[in-house]
């Protein structure tokens, strides 16, 4: 879950990282007031959940308060990777002598966090890695042992930084590592950290991602930062259909019928489980099918839950049929899903045999499930029909 820059900076401030004077503006008047309060030239940055702001015209500079006010709207309107600003961060602008890059993230191969440090900040770090590898250090650290400054010192020193800069950057990097673990982050990045011409070190921009799984542990922090519970902070905000999908899943603790994602096709998908859904979605598309949604069922959901999910998908405008498919199931029961899906069709006022294009869920309790499907005339198949073939059969029935 990505944080806005102003939220990242609020988090940095709690750990005493050095920040320039800044304020958040949500109107031209607020931008003017912010610039006046800060005094002197300011940088104004659109608050979006994406990089590439400078290129998109979402970052601008103002020398006067009036200029800041007039730049507010153009910055808000600038489109960055499909998003426009939630607000504008107004921050003091000072001459920079040198820029550094600091980042903490997970290394899935080493299964440890890694501190990345470079004295070539401000530019694309992958480019630095390629063209100037000696200017980028990678330092893994323990999640069990205490985080002490020597780790950061080694990381900073590894690219040849010494003298006052080494001693100024070390505590900043140390705190970044600490807050990375304390708040269950998946990314804590400062780019750039600037040494100003007057010798001060200031965090100019930051990017923080918190692990979705850990949100529950940090409710207090999130509330203080103003992050709403329904904000998923994915690449795009959830649609109404997706929000209702989440409600279906949360209304009943038995099993999973969730992770609903909206697409614009005509074939509704009642599919599972984690890996099976990915496999089946690919298969439907390979056959030229147009999915109306993605979803995952698993963990043996109740009849009621499968029924509600079916109703949600059948009720989506443009959905003509649904395909009910899973990999060979172990703990999810074929008969329970069959009951839920058929019930969902009937409660939607549809005949199951007309709207269920295919039912392919082999595995636990399949004999019982197949009896139910046969009784309602639904087209079903066992494991001798592959997931790919089943998807093809469903797509072939679409107009």
């Amino acid at each position, binding site marked *: 879950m990505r944080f806005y820059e102003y939220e990242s900076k609020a988090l940095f401030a709690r750990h005493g990282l050095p920040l320039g004077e800044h304020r958040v503006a949500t109107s031209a008047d607020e931008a003017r007031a912010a610039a006046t309060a800060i005094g002197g030239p300011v940088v104004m940055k659109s608050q979006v959940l994406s990089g590439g702001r400078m290129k998109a015209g979402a970052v601008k500079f103002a020398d006067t308060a009036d200029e800041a006010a007039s730049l507010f709207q153009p910055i808000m309107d600038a489109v960055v990777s499909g998003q426009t600003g939630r607000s504008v961060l107004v921050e003091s602008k000072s001459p920079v002598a040198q820029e550094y890059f600091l980042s903490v993230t997970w290394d899935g191969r080493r299964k440890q966090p890694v501190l990345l440090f470079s004295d070539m900040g401000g530019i694309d770090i992958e480019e630095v890695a390629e063209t100037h590898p000696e200017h980028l250090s990678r330092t893994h650290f323990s999640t069990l042992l205490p985080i002490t400054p020597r780790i950061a010192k080694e990381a900073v020193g590894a690219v040849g930084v010494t003298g006052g800069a080494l001693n100024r950057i070390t505590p900043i990097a140390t705190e970044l590592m600490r807050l990375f673990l304390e708040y269950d982050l998946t990314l804590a990045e400062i780019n750039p950290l600037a040494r100003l011409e007057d010798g001060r070190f200031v965090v100019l921009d930051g990017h923080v991602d918190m692990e979705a799984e850990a949100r529950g542990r940090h409710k207090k922090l999130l509330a203080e930062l103003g992050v709403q519970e329904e904000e998923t902070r994915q690449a795009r905000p959830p649609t109404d259909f997706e929000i209702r999908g989440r409600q279906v899943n949360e209304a009943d603790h038995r099993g999973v019928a969730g992770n609903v994602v909206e697409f614009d096709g005509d074939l509704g998908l009642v599919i599972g489980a984690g890996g099976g859904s990915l496999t089946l979605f690919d298969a439907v598309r390979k056959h030229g099918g147009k999915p109306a949604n993605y979803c995952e069922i698993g963990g043996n959901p109740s009849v009621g839950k499968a029924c509600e999910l079916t109703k949600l998908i059948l009720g989506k405008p443009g959905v003509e049929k649904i395909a009910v498919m899973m990999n060979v199931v172990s703990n999810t029961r074929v008969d329970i899903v069959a009951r839920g899906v058929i*019930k969902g069709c*009937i409660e939607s006022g549809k005949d199951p045999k007309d709207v269920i294009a295919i039912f392919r869920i082999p595995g636990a309790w399949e004999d019982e499930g197949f*009896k139910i499907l046969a009784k309602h005339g639904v087209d079903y198949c066992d494991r001798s029909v592959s997931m790919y073939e089943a998807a093809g059969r469903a797509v072939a029935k679409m107009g």
Partner: protein
Amino acid sequence: MAGMFIDVRVDASIAKDAEIAKKLEEVCPVDIFEATDGGVALVEKNLDECTLCDLCLEAAPKGKIEVVKLYER
């Protein structure tokens, strides 16, 4: 009223037995039975959730409870 897939029939001879009612309420994992002042009551909305675990059949005297799979009729 029965469910869409499952019906449960409780023999009249045990329907008013408070002790059996309580036992049935305890054993059913999907809350199909409710122990009321008048004995056993069925919770209709839960009938279709029946997992065919047979725990109710074991909790009552033999043959006094019948779980009917309506899709076999």
